[in-house]
């Protein structure tokens, strides 16, 4: 993409190349699968631009070595990240280093490029970004109404219970009814000594799809306004013994231990086919059998991985059987994998368009053409005759705690909430500060670091367990706390307001942070009001991906407010044409940095917050 001979670039990517990358990440070939993305990309670019200076770092951009000093080297930073956490991190570092940031994202046919310059435009966090989708525990354990609920159950509960860490807390037997039988039920999932594997499989099947459903079904309250689920027993679905089944079993199928698959074993070849209840049940039992027969060593340590064929088969089968029970339609392995793996769909063309637009903005930045900076949206459907829609950047949000250092307010019960709660639920979860330093005035209440001595570490550990008002430097109503992240050079001031009572349903954390807005995740269930906890699909909050494709823009419904070009907070449609000297090849540009941080195979996520505020319409997420 770059033809400037004097350009130097540094590329950071922690990921390795996978087959599914190859449909769009064209610097990579089949022979590169397994190798470092940063390194292979560097080599590929040098082939057609040998004079360029490129340094490749096979590393995580959140590594402390990429500190503010590091970022200060650059004239511009280009992001091609796939998770919110990393984007926020880079955003803060760019602000601290005062380096312009060109952000971008794509999903399917949608994409966008935005420019962020400290003091001149919004930073990446000025507009709230949607949180990862979570589901109430109740919906997952007792009252699923969508296939995704069944997937989460199969993946985070059943799979985890059977094959994951046994010491991990698991809600599999949590029921809205009485818990008296739960002590007995704990033994159910453990395979008895010398128990026949087929028998074990059917026992598990009958317990989770039969017995548990019957028990849940008996609670009148739950089903007053809902259809009761039907219990399913293996004997009803598969009356014959598994080994005697005829028809689809591939008799000559040699099971390759390196690619163990229940589908292959049963002759179900097409991942796009939707299995019947019978097929799903067979896969369920066969997959369980194969785990024990071929991968026994891993049992107890397994976590779900979308590239683990057998795990995907098991989860699909289990989700399908549960779906059948609850009258939800079954899905193919292909679809289930996408949901369970949070796979973001991606094509080469959108990425090419966005890449071109990134370079165009980067050049404007290098030329310091401030008036020309644009946020550009690549639309799937023509809107106001446009497929590519440029928008002038907004001014910084004065109440953005990241770039405007506006203090936040926190309502909390200072006699009941501990410092630990504050650190986990506010500092880390909401503010995205993973290595915090917390001060009250000049008193250090808590910090993390390698250079702490034993006494300090013990001190801070003790502080975490104290309620706020009992801390060595008591935190009470009216206290101002300062939270810092040294790596991100972010300082955040929080005004503490004591409050006695919190609504258990609406404020389950017992805290209310204001002056900081997070876009609410689109809740499709009204039930969420009744639940205290929620389960995310995938769990890890650092992988904040939307579970469904962004289908944001409503065609033909954009409002155009024409404004003179000037950076008002409202939308202005493009600027007046003027000559852009974009092809001056004689300039001696310094460094350009490109960051790619594909944690897994998932590609970039589109954030359409700006369009939302323009159209006042919420995204449709189903």
């Amino acid at each position, binding site marked *: 993409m770059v033809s400037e001979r004097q350009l130097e670039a540094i590329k950071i990517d922690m990921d390795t190349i996978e087959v*599914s990358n190859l449909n769009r990440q064209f610097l990579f070939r089949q022979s590169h699968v397994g190798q470092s993305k940063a390194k292979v990309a560097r080599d590929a670019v040098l082939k057609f631009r040998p004079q360029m200076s490129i340094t490749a770092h096979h590393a995580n951009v959140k590594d402390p070595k990429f500190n503010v000093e590091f970022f200060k080297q650059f004239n511009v930073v280009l992001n091609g990240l796939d998770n919110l956490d990393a984007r926020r991190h880079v955003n803060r570092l760019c602000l601290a280093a005062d380096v312009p940031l060109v952000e971008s994202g794509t999903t*399917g046919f949608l994409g966008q490029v935005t420019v962020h310059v400290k003091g001149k435009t919004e930073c990446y966090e000025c507009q709230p970004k949607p949180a990862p989708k979570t589901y109430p525990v109740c919906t997952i354990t007792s009252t699923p109404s969508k296939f995704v609920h069944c997937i989460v159950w199969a993946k985070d509960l059943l799979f985890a219970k059977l094959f994951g860490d046994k010491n991990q807390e698991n809600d599999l037997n949590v029921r809205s009814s009485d818990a008296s039988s739960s002590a007995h039920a704990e033994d159910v999932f453990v395979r008895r000594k010398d128990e026949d594997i087929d028998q074990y499989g059917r026992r598990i099947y009958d317990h989770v799809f039969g017995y548990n459903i019957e028990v849940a079904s008996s609670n009148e309250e739950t089903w007053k306004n809902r259809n009761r689920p039907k219990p399913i027993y293996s004997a009803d679905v598969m009356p014959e013994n598994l080994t005697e089944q005829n028809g689809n079993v591939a008799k000559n199928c040699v099971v390759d231990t390196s690619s163990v698959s229940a589908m292959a074993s049963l002759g179900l070849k097409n991942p796009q086919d939707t299995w019947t209840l019978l097929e799903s049940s067979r896969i369920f039992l066969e997959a369980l059998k194969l785990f024990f027969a071929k991968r026994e060593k891993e049992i107890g340590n397994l976590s779900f991985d979308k590239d683990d064929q057998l795990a995907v088969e098991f989860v699909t089968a289990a989700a399908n059987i549960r779906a059948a029970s609850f009258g939800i339609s079954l899905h193919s392995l292909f679809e289930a994998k996408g949901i369970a793996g949070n796979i973001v769909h991606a*094509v*080469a063309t959108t990425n*090419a368009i966005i890449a071109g637009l990134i370079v165009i903005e980067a050049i404007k930045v290098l030329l310091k053409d401030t008036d020309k900076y644009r946020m550009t949206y690549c639309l799937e459907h023509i809107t106001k005759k446009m*497929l590519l829609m440029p928008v002038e950047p907004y001014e910084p949000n004065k109440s953005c705690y990241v770039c405007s250092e506006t203090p936040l307010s926190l309502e909390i019960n200072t006699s009941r909430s501990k410092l630990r709660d504050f650190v986990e639920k506010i500092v880390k979860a909401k503010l995205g500060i993973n290595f915090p330093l917390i001060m009250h005035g000049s008193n250090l209440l808590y910090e993390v670091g390698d250079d702490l001595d034993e006494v300090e570490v013990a001190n801070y550990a003790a502080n975490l367990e104290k309620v706020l008002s009992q801390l060595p430097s008591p935190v009470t109503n009216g206290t101002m706390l300062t939270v810092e992240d040294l790596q991100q050079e972010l300082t955040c001031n929080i005004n503490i307001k004591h409050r006695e009572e919190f609504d258990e349903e609406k404020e389950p954390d017992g805290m209310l942070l204001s002056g900081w807005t997070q876009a609410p995740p689109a809740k499709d269930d009204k039930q969420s009001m009744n639940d205290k906890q929620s389960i995310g699909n995938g769990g890890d909050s650092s992988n904040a991906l939307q579970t469904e494709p962004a289908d944001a823009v409503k065609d033909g419904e954009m409002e155009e407010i024409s404004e003179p070009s000037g950076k008002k907070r409202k939308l202005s449609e493009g600027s007046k044409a003027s000559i852009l000297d974009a092809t001056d090849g004689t300039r001696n540009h310094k460094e350009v940095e490109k960051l790619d941080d594909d944690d897994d195979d998932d590609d970039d996520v589109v954030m359409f917050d700006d369009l939302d505020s323009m159209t006042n319409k919420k995204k449709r997420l189903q």
Partner: protein
Amino acid sequence: MDGEELTEQETALYDRQIRVWGADAQRRLSKSHILVCGMKGTVAEFCKNIVLAGVGSLTLMDDRVVTEEAWSANFLIPPDENVYGGKTIAEVCCDSLKDFNPMVRVSVEKGDLSSLDGEFYDKFDVVVVSCCSVTTKKLINEKCRKLSKRVAFYTVDCRDSCGEIFVDLQNHKYSKQKIEETIECQLRYPSFEEAISVPWRALPRKASKLYFALRVLEQFEEAEGRSPGEISIADLPAVLKLKKELCEANALNASHVTDSLLERLIIGTREFTPVCAVVGGILGQEVIKAISCKGEPLKNFFFFDIMDGKGVVEDVSSPKKESK
């Protein structure tokens, strides 16, 4: 539709895009045959996109020898004489493209595009032409239209930091998603000749200025017997004169086609690589839509200009022949 399933290899490679357009569309792509003529930077980008998408075959035509100008904007040509020496642009690009996706048959066709007959074009489902005269564009388009099977026709050209795409899908039936349901639709496209014959006054007042500017340059090059892009600042006075004449003939105010835009397009002889990526990406998407019959294709001109950053669609068709 087809009985053939995608192979395991295809399913693994194309997983992320199958999630966008579905297995059926992917199957159609794998059976499609594309012809491309005139390989500059934008077309190189387009070729990369459709090879990655997994079309059945791609045939390249460009007998020009490789020059510094060629490899400066075409990333398929390494700047290494040991590699490109003695080869035509098409040949070098062919070698590079094969690498992107071994499942796509990429080949070179030599010869003069306009001398080839209908039987030749019948082998393809999509024809994309670039860097050729307006006469050639009309000619190829007509040859495609005469065939009994529908051959989609596209032109694409980038000058300076602008780009233009023209689309002719003749009579195109497709499906599109509206909320939860699938709707069947149809579009009728005018030929290239019909489109550029539409009187300028019939076009909306705010129609992209690029449309008019490029038509002026096209005419100029045609009249002077120049190759596309074979133009310099010395030609500016003559071009402006032609512009005035065309505007008069079309009863359009001469100021409607800005002199500065024409000047810019004349001076900027080379393509600008990020524009190639953008326009090549849009074109790739359009071709995929045409082959898969999924999604509403653009009708019938697309313009991109770095100056305003907009990617605009213009419908240049005669109202009488229009029917949806």
